[in-house]
């Protein structure tokens, strides 16, 4: 049932398209918005505790004011005391209580339109610091992957290509990765195609027994199992590395659907960008010329 439910939700609730993300990104300038708070307050942004305290002080002041002053005002506003001829015993108390009760309720402090600022913060997820890279692989007799296992045509793109490249500043990304991991010409994240038309991509990320994506996360974690898909069957030279060093992991076999019969597990201690390259086995196959996939261990 769980898998069926997950599949139904994935199909019915697609994530945003690249165009939507780009449009929204262009609509909002984080620098301007972040500066808005400073200019409005005339000082660095407020500390979180100040608002509830301010609300309490204002509420207390308003309550005192109403509690002390309004009874006097109300008494003054009452008509003159009835004459003795009317009969004091049957006359009602000239100071009605109901209006006071209503007035006492008034000093509700306006929380403003940003009311969620006053809500308690969600309990926070324990974060971890990056750890040194470790990745292990194990041969799979036949990876048992649900759906999504059709090979992608060379150079073809489908929804899984979504966001595989950072649109803005690709050069900057390439430069940064070149510094970090020694890439020379181009980088890709979950999906890449070589100039020869060989496509290599992440076909599944399994986290705690659950399949993630698509879109597949570029950020992976310790314990994640990474499955790959190639655009052709047969032996593939797989390499992996970090910090500028790509080491051949040896040959792996892709089946008729392109499923690579090796699962990679991110092990304890992994950190930073992790690079995989792949190319069909041939006399001139080399780690540096294969299709490249980058996964960032968070």
């Amino acid at each position, binding site marked *: 049932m769980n898998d069926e439910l997950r599949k139904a939700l994935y199909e019915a609730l697609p994530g*945003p398209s690249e165009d939507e993300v780009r449009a*929204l990104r262009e609509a909002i300038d984080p620098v301007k918005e972040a500066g808005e*708070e400073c200019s409005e307050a005339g000082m660095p942004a407020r500390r979180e505790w100040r608002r509830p305290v301010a609300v309490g002080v204002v509420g207390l002041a308003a309550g005192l004011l109403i509690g002390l002053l309004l009874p006097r005002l109300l008494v003054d506003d009452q008509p003159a005391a009835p004459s003795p001829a009317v009969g004091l015993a049957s006359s009602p108390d000239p100071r009605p209580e109901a209006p006071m009760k209503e007035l006492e309720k008034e000093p509700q402090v306006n929380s403003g339109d940003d009311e969620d600022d006053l809500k308690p913060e969600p309990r926070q997820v324990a*974060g971890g610091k990056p750890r040194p890279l470790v990745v292990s692989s194990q041969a799979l007799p036949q990876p048992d992957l649900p759906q999504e296992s059709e090979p992608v045509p060379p150079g073809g793109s489908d929804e899984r290509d979504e966001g595989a490249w950072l649109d803005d500043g690709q050069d900057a990304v390439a430069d940064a990765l070149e510094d970090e991991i020694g890439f020379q010409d181009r980088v890709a994240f979950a999906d890449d195609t070589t100039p020869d038309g060989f496509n290599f991509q992440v076909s599944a990320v399994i986290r705690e027994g659950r399949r993630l994506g698509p879109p597949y996360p570029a950020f992976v974690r310790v314990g994640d199992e990474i499955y790959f898909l190639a655009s052709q069957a047969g032996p593939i030279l797989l390499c992996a590395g970090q910090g500028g060093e790509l080491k051949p992991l040896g040959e792996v076999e892709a089946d008729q659907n392109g499923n690579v019969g090796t699962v990679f597990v991110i092990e304890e201690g992994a950190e930073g960008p992790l690079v995989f390259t792949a190319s069909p086995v041939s006399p001139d196959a080399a780690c540096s010329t294969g299709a490249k996939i980058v996964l960032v261990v968070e």
Partner: protein
Amino acid sequence: MPPPSGPRLLLLDRKLASPAELVEEARRGNEVALRALGDHWTYRVLYWARTRVRPEEDALDLAQDVLVVAFRNIEQIRDPACADAWLYGKFRGKLSDYRKTKRKRSELMSDALLGWVPNWWGAKKTTEHSDVWDVLETLADDEREALLLVYRDGYSQVEAADMMGIRRSSFQRLLARAEARSAANLGLSEAK
């Protein structure tokens, strides 16, 4: 943080940086970090909005509201390592406002147009929820969020409970209810 982060690389001074580092740098006034954080948060918030709200225009409006509030209140983040959980809190607040407004609007429309019409022909409300969106609408807000966080966004139950700010046992109960109801309404096989 878990998966809804799209395949985006976060850069800080031409170096790879985690979202927590970006938040720290952004709060120090580093514009490069703030823009990189903008990329990351835009994708994440829009992802949440598009999987919870329709039509698409409403999702975009909601995401925009959340992002504006988030950037203006970035100083409130206590622990940068948990910035995404904080962001989710902001998102949930706005989502709740959106649902309330939509509910009120729909009730007003219903009262104004249809409330007085007698049910002469005994029309029945449809009970077959072939559409996943309709099924999700039948769940309580908390149940829907629990279901989506785990089944659509890929968070673990522990993480999802932390993000919703509830105890794990409570979260498990919520999720179990949501699973059972949605599976029944979608005609899926019984829970294991």
